[in-house]
C-alpha cells in the first residue's frame, strides 16, 4: 500500500473510532492497525538523508554515471 493509501486508511480508522459506537475488541483491533500504519508512514518520511548527485553522463546502456555534488558556498 503506498503512502497516501496508508494515510487514507488511517483517516478511516480514526473516524470510525471517533464515532464511538464500537465494541471493546473492535476498538482495540482498529487501534492496533492504526498504530502500525502510523509507524510505517513515519518510517517512510524519515528514510535516509538527502543525497545530491551530479550527472556526468549516461553510459551505453542508459545507466547514469554520477558523482557527489556539493554547492560552492
Amino acid at each position: 500500500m503506498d503512502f497516501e493509501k496508508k494515510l487514507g486508511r488511517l483517516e478511516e480508522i480514526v473516524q470510525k473510532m471517533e464515532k464511538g459506537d464500537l465494541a471493546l475488541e473492535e476498538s482495540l483491533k482498529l487501534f492496533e492497525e492504526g498504530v502500525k500504519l502510523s509507524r510505517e508512514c513515519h518510517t517512510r518520511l524519515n528514510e535516509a538523508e538527502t543525497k545530491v548527485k551530479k550527472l556526468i553522463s549516461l553510459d551505453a546502456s542508459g545507466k547514469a554515471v554520477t558523482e557527489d555534488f556539493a554547492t560552492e558556498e
Partner: protein
Amino acid sequence: MQEQGVPTSANSAQLPTTSEGSEAAVLTVEQLNRQIRQLIEGELGLVWVQGELSNFKAHTSGHFYFSLKDAKSQISAVMFRGHNSRLKFKPHDGLEVILRGRVTVYEPRGNYQIVAETMEPVGAGALQKAFEQLKEKLKNEGLFDASRKRALPALPKHIAIVTSPTGAAIRDMINVLSRRNKSVQITLVPTIVQGEAAAPKIVEALKQAYRLGPDAIIVGRGGGSIEDMWCFNDETVARTIAASPVPIISAVGHEIDFTIADFVADLRAPTPSAAAELVVKNTADLVNRLGALDKMLLFSIQKFFKLEMQKIQSFAKRLVDPKKRLFDLMQRNDEMTTRLTQSMARLIDRKKKEVAHLGSMMDSLSPLKVVERGYSVTRKGAEVIKSVSQLKVGDSVSVRLAQGEFVANVEKIIDRVGE
C-alpha cells in the same frame, strides 16, 4: 525673427550691413540659443533614431543621461524618469537601440540633445514578434492546455534538476528540498542556461533527465534579463519540455514575464526556490496530516478507555458484598428490636400512669371518700334522699355516716333549697 534695437558701445566697430543695406540685428547669446531651439524644434519635431548607447548614466534623480552614437557621429541624449520607468530592459553601454524622441536645445549651454520618449533594443521588435508567433502556434497545438497539466507526486523520492551547476539557483533548490523532505534524492543534470548555444544544451540535458526516471523534474535558472532567459523561448526546448514523461516545473527566475517553457510545463514557479517549495509542499501537508491523525488516534483510544472504566466503576458500585448485606440486616434487626422494646416500655409506663390516674380519680369520687369528709347518705327505705321534697314530717329515715348508721325522724322541714 525679432528685430532688435542697435546697442551702442564705446568700442563697437562699425556696424555690419547686409547686402540689402539694412543693419543686421545683434543678438544676445540667450536670444540666439532661443532662436536655434525654436528652429530645431519646429523643423524636426518627433524623430526616430537608431544608435549605440554610450556614456550611459542613470542619475540618482532617476533620469538617464547618455550619448547615442554610430560609427561617425554622436548626439547627447536624455530620458526622463517618467518615460524610462516603463522600460522592460536595462540599458547599458554598447547596446544598440532605437529611440523615439524630440530634438531640443538646452539653452543655458547651447547644446542640442534628443529627449527620448521610448527606447527599444534593436531587434527587440523582431524577437517579440517571433515569441508571439511561437506562443500562438504551440497554443493552437494544445500544448498549453490545462488538461495536459499533471499534478506533482505526493512524496517524490527522486528529483532531477536541469540547471546550471554554478550559481544561486541550484544551491537554493537543494536547501529547500533537503530541509523539507529529508528522504528526497536529487540529481543535478548540468547545462548552460543562457546565450546562443544554450537551447540545444538544455534539450540534451532534459532528455538525459528523462532517462533517469525521476518522480519529478525542475528545469530553470536564476534571475536575469529577458535576453538571458531567451533560450527558454526556443521551440525545441518547449517541445522537449512538453514531452516530459513526468511532471515538470519550469522555474525561469523572472517574476512577471513568462517564457514559452513556463506555458508548456506542468507547473510554473516564479523562482527556483519557489519551484522547490512546490515539489515538497505535498510532503509538508502529508506530514501535518499524519501528525494530526496520530493525535486523534491516541485521543480516541484514551476516550474509549475512560468510558469503559466509567462503566465498570458504576457496575461495581451497584454490586454489594453479600456479607455486608447480612451484617446490614442484623444491624437492622437489632435496631428494630431495641426500638420495639423501648416503645413497649413506654406504652406500659403510660398505661400504668393512666390506670393510676384513673384509680386516684376513682378514689376521690368514691362515696366512701365523700362520707369521710363528713357527708352522710340519707335513705328512706331503699330510696336515697337527695331533696326534702322526698320527705314529709314524721318520716323515718336511716342515715349512714363514715362510721356507723342511725335512724332518725323528720321533725321539721326547713328549706326547700333551690326553690
